[in-house]
């Protein structure tokens, strides 16, 4: 079972590495944010698997933190995108 999970973990890691290509290529900022979002979710899955493989139960807490906070970068992106829009309250 451990071997199986480690293999899947490697597979998900490979998927994350492929997702990086989208950060490289863009073209729009939204595409890059989406790739970061995918890597966040994949990272959570990888953490959960890693925690089971290495028998460190506290890893779930790290995954919980990531699940809460991984979206914050995207929220900041959306907010700042809006700050430049005409209906914003004009910061900068």
């Amino acid at each position, binding site marked *: 079972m451990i071997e199986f999970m480690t293999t899947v973990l490697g597979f998900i890691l490979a998927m994350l590495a492929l*997702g990086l290509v989208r950060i490289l290529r863009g073209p729009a900022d939204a595409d890059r944010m989406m790739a970061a979002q995918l890597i966040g979710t*994949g990272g959570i899955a990888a953490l959960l*698997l890693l925690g089971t493989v290495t028998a460190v139960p506290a890893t779930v807490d790290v995954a919980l933190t990531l699940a809460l906070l991984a979206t914050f970068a995207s929220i900041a992106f959306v907010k700042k995108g809006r700050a430049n829009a*005409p209906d914003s309250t004009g910061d900068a």
Partner: protein
Amino acid sequence: MSVAVDIITIVAITAGAFFFLAGTVGLLRFPDTLTRLHALTKADNLGLGLVVLGLVPQAGSLRGGLKLLCVWALALLAGAMVSQLIAREASGQRGDPAMRHDGPPP
């Protein structure tokens, strides 16, 4: 019993890995931002969900299993909302007042 549980784990995690594959391929191959977002949300919800489903029987305790489910629920909630926001940002509808409410009309 234990074998049956292990089979459930293997099937669910393999299916989850498949959705991560699908999501990544979609993110790389689909032609424009919104279709790529469509691919991404599948990996978000189903990929992580199936991996969690596979890990729950291995958690060993009720508390551990519930925490795993919490992780998924949180990722589901936050991921779905953020995808919405990114989609609106990408499609440039933010300035259009008619498109701004996604809840029921007041």
